[in-house]
Every structure is written in structure tokens, then in C-alpha cells.
């Protein structure tokens, strides 16, 4: 192929207790879309943080256009034409699009003299890449997809010809994903290089030219897309064939554990989020909640864990009426949950593993001893969970924010499962996880269900819901459009209900 733009040789990076990258070689050609694939914690982000100047490698060298460079900051990386679009955008919300693009570039003075001219220049610049923008729109008014485009434009405008995108599709709707991929292809055709950090195989197969797979910090191989298939890539990522088999599912459905009787819940902006919603979940059953995000899933999860008051209706858990009871009463009644926001809500980032494992049961003996905490019992619990759930951690007294995404989720699930819950509310439990971690989460959910726990599983992924659930309820604008048994559900039928179409034959809960 053509010219090598980026050449990373034998890159090694160590963090306390962990080698994030070991002797990694990585090359990017001009004009290609190069996917960097790997499980969470495989070292993708570290490698790209080194390339974009956030971290410095402990060993190895970086050559850009053949010239050896020492990148000491993102700004220096950008001076060499390397820019990174992060998952969390770095835009100034109250500023206009044009202002955001010019911010931090030189010639700021000129801009204020020629606002109009500059805005036109940006619009023309964007058109080169097939992007239409309104230069005067304020960033806060933009959708997530539009913001992402502004981030990309910002880097292009600063002269980046190697663009690193960190999980760019995680925040996008399918429609936006398609547009993004078109934009990326156009940029590649214009001679820019794109590095795509991802763990979504189907996207890789759709858009990438070449693929580099990282596993445990090492480069497992760099391949052309045309030479591989998804199964082959999966094997490279996890070194085993993954089977999402649910055959070991027992289907003993027990008595009702959760009963929602016509609950009404108000969302954060004062708008009704759940309207007269009724549901039942039984012991040993997995009830999937399908629906496009923002249709009341979060409010539903918060209401049945006691975090959000209900304006009407009743919440009954295991026969107890817990309507508008404080959250600890739900915990005592055996409600466990994996919240959407794992680090920050489910786990306390700056506290260590010992403090995090007792977050739900510190009130009860044996962890509580009178007014005191029994540190010994807490320590035993931490070590037990770490070994039983295979959580990779170098030191239990490090703040848990140091853990990788997969390990964080394992820790959170471990703690919630250790409470032997009657009802388990899982909100997007595999979002952002790689195949290995996803499989582990699925296995845990099935084991939990077999043990007789009632599980409420929220997900955007219909395949996942169809594989795991016994029944699927579709949530649309705060209402249940229908509940279908997973055995006879059709994806098209569910998809129709997700956008508000009522289906005949789907029984109302």
C-alpha cells in the first residue's frame, strides 16, 4: 500500500502493577481506516494515548512520516498531525460552532475582526469533507452526532491528518453511525488516516481497511479486512470461540417477586416519564425491557430501586408494599441493581475495593459490629469476591477507578450478586464491554436466574434480549407497548413496538 504515516515500534507502557502495552508494533498507512480491536483492558486506549501525547511510553519509539518524534503533550502530537476524538467531547457548550473550531488556534485576533469571513471559511472547509454545519449554532443546541462532527472538524482544521476516534459509535444512533462512517471514508479518500478504537466486530467489518488486534497489551496481529471474518477476529481477541449458549437455562418460573401497579413517575425535567405502568416479574424469570434509550428506562430502574419517588401507583416487592419507601428498604427487601452509571453511582471511584464491596451491606452484621465497621470481615469479603469473580486487580487498596471497564463491571456484579438478591435490576449491563466480559456477565445473569432471582434486564440490543429473556416488554414513551414471550418474538415486531406501533396479538401486561 502507500506511505507509512505512523510507525510505533516496540512500545511498552507500564502502570503500577500492570503492563498495559508490551513491545507493541503498530503502523498506519496514509488514506486507510485502521481499526484497533481488543477487549476492555487490552491496551487500546493506552496505546492511542501514547500516540496522541497523553502518556509517554516506557520503551520503544514513534516515527511519524519517517521522522523519530518525542510526543510530550496532545498539543505536540497535533503539531505532528495526530489528533484524538475522545468519548467525552471537549467542546465549550455556550460557544458557537465557529468559535469552538477556532478556539486555541493561532490568529485569534484576526477571527474577531472577520467573524463573517471566518465562518464562511469554516463552512467551505467542512464541505470538503461532505459535512454541513451551521457556524453560528451554539454547541449546546447540537445533537451528540453533530458535536462529534464538530470535534472531528476541529482536529482537521488544526491540520490533523491522523485521526484517532475512541469508541465513536458508542454514543450514536444507527443513522448517525452510517453518516459517521461515510464521513470517515471520505476523509480517508482525501488522504487522511483514521484509527478507530472499538470492540464492535460488525462495525470493524463494515468500515475498516485493516485491523490490528490487541490482547493483554500485545499486538496479536494486523490483518486486512478482506482476509478475515468475524469468527477469526473473535478468536484473535479472546483466543477461543465464543458461544453465547443459554442451553443451561432452567425455566422454573416461581411466584411474583416484583409487581408494579400502574405507577406514574416524573422525570428530571418535570415531564411524566412513566405513565400508569404495570409489570410483573417472577422468581427465576428474566424479563427484558426493550426500547430506545430515553423512553423511561432510567426512571423505571430508579423507581424500583427506591431512588425516584412515584407519583401514583404501587411498587410491591416480595409481597411488601415499598411504594415511596427510602432506598435502603428496597436493599433490605432484596433488590440489587447494576446502574447505568457504574463508576460514580454503582461504585465509588476514589474509594478502594474494600470500601466498595461493602457499599450495600455495611449496615448489617457481620460487617457492622455495633457502631463500628469490621475491617477484617470486609477484607475477607473483598478477597473472596476478587477470586470468585476473577477480578483482575493488582492491589485491593488502590482506588477502584484504576480498574478497567470489564473489571469494574465484574466487581459491581460480584457485589450485587453476593447479596443474594430476590430481584435484580440490570441496566445495560454489557454496554461498553468486550466479548469476553460480556460473556461473563451473561453467564452470571443466567446463574442468578437459575438460583431463583427475578431479573429485570434493560438493553438496547434486541439479540441480547432475545437470547437471555423469558419475556420481553417494550417500553415506548413511558408506556409498555406489549409483552411478548421471547420464544415467539420476532425482531421486526419488537422493532415496530419500539417506535410506538401497537402489535395485535402482543398481550398487554
Amino acid at each position, binding site marked *: 500500500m502507500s506511505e507509512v504515516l505512523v510507525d510505533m515500534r516496540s512500545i511498552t507502557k507500564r*502502570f*503500577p502493577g500492570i503492563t498495559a502495552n508490551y513491545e507493541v508494533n503498530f503502523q498506519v498507512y496514509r488514506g486507510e481506516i485502521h481499526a484497533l480491536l481488543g477487549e476492555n483492558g487490552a491496551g487500546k486506549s493506552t496505546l492511542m494515548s501514547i500516540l496522541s501525547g497523553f*502518556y509517554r511510553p516506557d520503551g520503544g519509539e514513534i516515527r511519524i512520516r519517517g521522522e523519530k518524534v518525542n510526543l*510530550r*503533550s496532545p*498539543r*505536540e502530537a497535533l*503539531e*505532528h498531525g495526530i489528533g484524538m476524538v475522545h468519548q467525552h467531547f471537549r467542546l465549550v457548550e455556550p460557544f458557537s460552532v465557529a468559535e469552538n473550531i477556532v478556539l486555541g488556534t493561532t490568529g485569534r485576533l484576526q477571527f474577531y475582526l472577520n467573524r463573517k469571513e471566518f465562518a464562511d471559511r469554516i463552512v467551505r472547509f467542512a464541505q470538503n469533507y461532505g459535512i454541513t454545519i451551521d457556524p453560528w449554532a451554539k454547541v449546546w443546541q447540537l445533537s451528540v452526532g453533530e458535536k462529534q462532527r464538530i470535534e472531528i472538524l476541529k482536529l482537521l482544521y488544526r*491540520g490533523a491528518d491522523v485521526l484517532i476516534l475512541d469508541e465513536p459509535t458508542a454514543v450514536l444512533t444507527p443513522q448517525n453511525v452510517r453518516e459517521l462512517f461515510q464521513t470517515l471514508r471520505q476523509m480517508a479518500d482525501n488522504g487522511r488516516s483514521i484509527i478507530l478504537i472499538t470492540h464492535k466486530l460488525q462495525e470493524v467489518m463494515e468500515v475498516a481497511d485493516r485491523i490490528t488486534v490487541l490482547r493483554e497489551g500485545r499486538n496479536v496481529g494486523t490483518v486486512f479486512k478482506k482476509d478475515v471474518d468475524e469468527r477469526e477476529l473473535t478468536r484473535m481477541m479472546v483466543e477461543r470461540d465464543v458461544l453465547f449458549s443459554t442451553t443451561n437455562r432452567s425455566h422454573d418460573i416461581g411466584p411474583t417477586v416484583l409487581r408494579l401497579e400502574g405507577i406514574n413517575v416524573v422525570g428530571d425535567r418535570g415531564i411524566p416519564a412513566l405513565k400508569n405502568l404495570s409489570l410483573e416479574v417472577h422468581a427465576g424469570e428474566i424479563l427484558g425491557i426493550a426500547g430506545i434509550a430515553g423512553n423511561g428506562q432510567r426512571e423505571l430502574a430508579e423507581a424500583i*430501586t*427506591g*431512588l425516584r419517588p412515584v407519583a401514583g401507583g404501587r411498587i410491591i416487592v416480595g409481597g411488601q408494599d415499598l411504594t415511596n419507601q*427510602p*432506598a*435502603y*428498604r*428496597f*436493599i433490605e427487601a432484596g433488590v440489587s*441493581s447494576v*446502574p447505568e*452509571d457504574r463508576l*460514580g*453511582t*454503582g*461504585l*465509588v*471511584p*476514589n*474509594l478502594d475495593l474494600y*470500601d466498595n464491596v*461493602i*457499599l*450495600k451491606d*455495611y*449496615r448489617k452484621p457481620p460487617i*457492622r459490629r455495633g*457502631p*463500628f*465497621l469490621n*475491617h477484617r470481615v470486609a477484607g475477607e469479603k473483598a478477597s473472596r469476591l476478587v477470586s470468585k469473580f476473577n477480578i483482575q486487580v493488582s492491589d485491593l487498596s488502590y482506588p477502584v477507578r484504576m480498574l478497567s471497564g470489564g473489571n469494574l463491571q465484574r466487581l459491581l456484579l460480584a457485589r450485587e450478586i453476593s447479596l443474594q438478591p430476590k430481584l435484580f435490576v440490570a441496566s445495560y449491563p454489557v454496554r461498553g464491554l468486550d466479548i469476553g466480559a460480556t460473556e461473563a456477565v451473561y453467564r452470571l445473569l443466567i446463574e442468578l436466574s437459575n438460583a431463583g432471582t427475578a431479573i429485570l434486564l434493560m438493553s438496547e440490543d434486541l439479540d441480547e434480549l432475545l437470547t437471555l429473556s423469558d419475556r420481553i416488554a417494550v417500553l415506548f414513551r413511558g408506556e409498555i407497548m406489549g409483552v411478548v414471550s421471547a420464544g415467539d418474538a420476532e425482531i421486526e415486531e419488537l422493532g415496530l413496538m419500539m417506535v410506538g406501533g401497537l402489535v395485535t396479538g402482543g398481550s398487554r401486561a
Partner: protein
Amino acid sequence: MMNSWLVNRFGLRIEKQIRVSPWISLLIPFTSIVLALLVGAIFLSLTGNDPWKVYGVMFKGAFGSVFGLSESVVNAIPLLMTGLAVALAFRMLLWNIGAEGQFYMGAFAASWVALSFPHAPTYLVMPGMLLAGFAGGALWGLLPAIPRALLGVNETLTTLMLNYVAILWVDSLVYGPWRDPQGYNFPLTAQFSSAAILPTLGNTRIHAGVFLALAAAVIVHIILKHTVWGYEIRVIGESQKAAKYAGINVVKNILLVMLLSGGLSGLAGYCEVAGITHRLQESISPGYGYTAIIVAWLGKLNPWAIIVVSFLFGGFLVGGYTMQSAGLPAATVSILQGAILFFVLAGEILTRYRICVVERRNDR
């Protein structure tokens, strides 16, 4: 020309530190003090003094004699208690700037007991004053905590404002109804009965409050580190969302922590009137409640470190008084304290970031 070449060729950059090494977090407060003393030295030489001589006088005054040392301890007692009080609240991200006012209200409530029961025996009046002092400060801390807990009213402002109310309240008493008729019109109350006065150590002014202050440090440490309540405080301080998720009652804890924080400051006020002044008077505190904020931060909110820092700052105050008698304004000490806080906060950034000088590239 030269200057612009330098600016163009080199730049300063701030980078985020990935991990803070433990010895740096010890080095920073120490360096802050040294740098503050250096800045103070420059200030002193500019005002025509010999900084070494002045620092010598200060140091000798504070730590160079038994008397100086004992006076440093005397000043450290209220600093330790108020320092612990604000540190406890800071741990939960409650910015209690009101230790000064809570100190005054504690002093006022304890004095009320002493003055109302001049003939009561020690075993009644002492515990009574102690409880009243605690309660006075606690209620003064609770007052801003209620709107904070229920409505989210910013406590930084309300606690600060209440300081002025408390100070003026005490002033109005000692200038008005509580003024000692035999006090030659000075703004003082009558002296407490001997039953209401804390015993002292030998000939020094170190009073029994020192044990109370040290016990408070131990108790705060035990609460934070070893109790269920302290665990809740730590979780809330790190993430309120996680605390709610864990079923922790955040509202209740805001009230309780401010109650205890205010109570500790109130106890400091009680010790001051029962151990030092033996009466309520104007300006019983030279700003202990404000210095406490510096003490708490310099001690990194750690009770053991706060003991050491409050002794140091107690010495600082005594050194200030010595300087005053040597003809320098006591405000010099305030300048030094301000400089120290400034460098500590700057140092905080250094523990999390590093600054490097970089050569700019001209090739692009």
C-alpha cells in the same frame, strides 16, 4: 527582543500526573511553609527589617522557652478543635467556613451557664458548661445545614455570614446586658466562679482543654476510619449519587456532620472562656475559626496531621505576639499565614499536575 525570543522559543506546560507519589504529598506542605517564609523574608526586608532577626525572634518566642512552648500549646488547643471541626465537614464536601461563629456561640452558651449559676459546684457547672458549649456551636452549625440539606442552599456563604451574627451577638452582650458593673466599663462580663474554671498545668496557662482537644482528634479519627457513620461520610464526600444508591440518607448526614462540626468548634469556645479568659469578652478569638481552615488543609484533613499543624500554627501566633512586642505589627504573621495557604493550594496543584518547560518547534 530577547524577551520575545524566549517566550516564542520556550513555553510552560501543565501536564496531569498519573499517580501521586506518597513522599511528594509530604514534601509539598513542607515546601509551602519554606516558600511562604521566603516570601515573608522578602516582604520584611522591603519594610526595612532583617528577616533573619525577625524570624529568630519569632521562633524563640514560640518555641525557644518553656513559656513560649506552653503558650504555643495554649493557642494550639482552639486551633486543633476548630481545625478538626472544619476537616470533618470538608470530608463530606461541606464547606464549613463558620467555625469562628460556632466558636463564639459555644463560648456564649458556656458563659451563660457559668454566669447563671455562680454558686453551683464544679461537678455540676463544668459538665453543664461543656454541654452548653457543644450545643451552642452545634446549633449554630445546624442552622445553615438545614437549608443546605433540604434546599441545596450554598453553605459556604451562610456559614460565613453567621460568623458576623455570632460575633456581633457576643459584642452586644458584653457591651450591654452582660457587662460587668464592676468592670470599669470594659466590654467584659463578670469573672466566672472558680468552680467554672478549668484547671491548668503548673504555672502555665495550658488548661485541661488540651486533653479534650486531643481526645477530639482520636474520636474524629475513629469515627471516620472505623465506624459505620464515618463510612457513610466518606461515601457521601466522594459521590453523592453512589451514597443515594447505597441507601445512605444524605440529608440526615449533612445535618449530623454540621452538628458535630459546629459542636467541636463550640467546645473550643467553651475551653477558651473556661480555661483562658475566665469570662466572656469582646474578640475572644483572634480568628481561630479561619486559621482552622488553613490548619485543616495543611493537615490534609487527617486528624493526626492536624495535631502537628495546629501546634505549629499555635507557635506562629505566639511568635506574632513576640514580634509585636519587638515593635512589628502582628499583621505580619497574618501575611505569613496567607502566604502559606497560598503556597499550600498552589502545591495541591503540583501534586496532581507537573509543570515542564518545553522548547517550541518552529518546523510547522
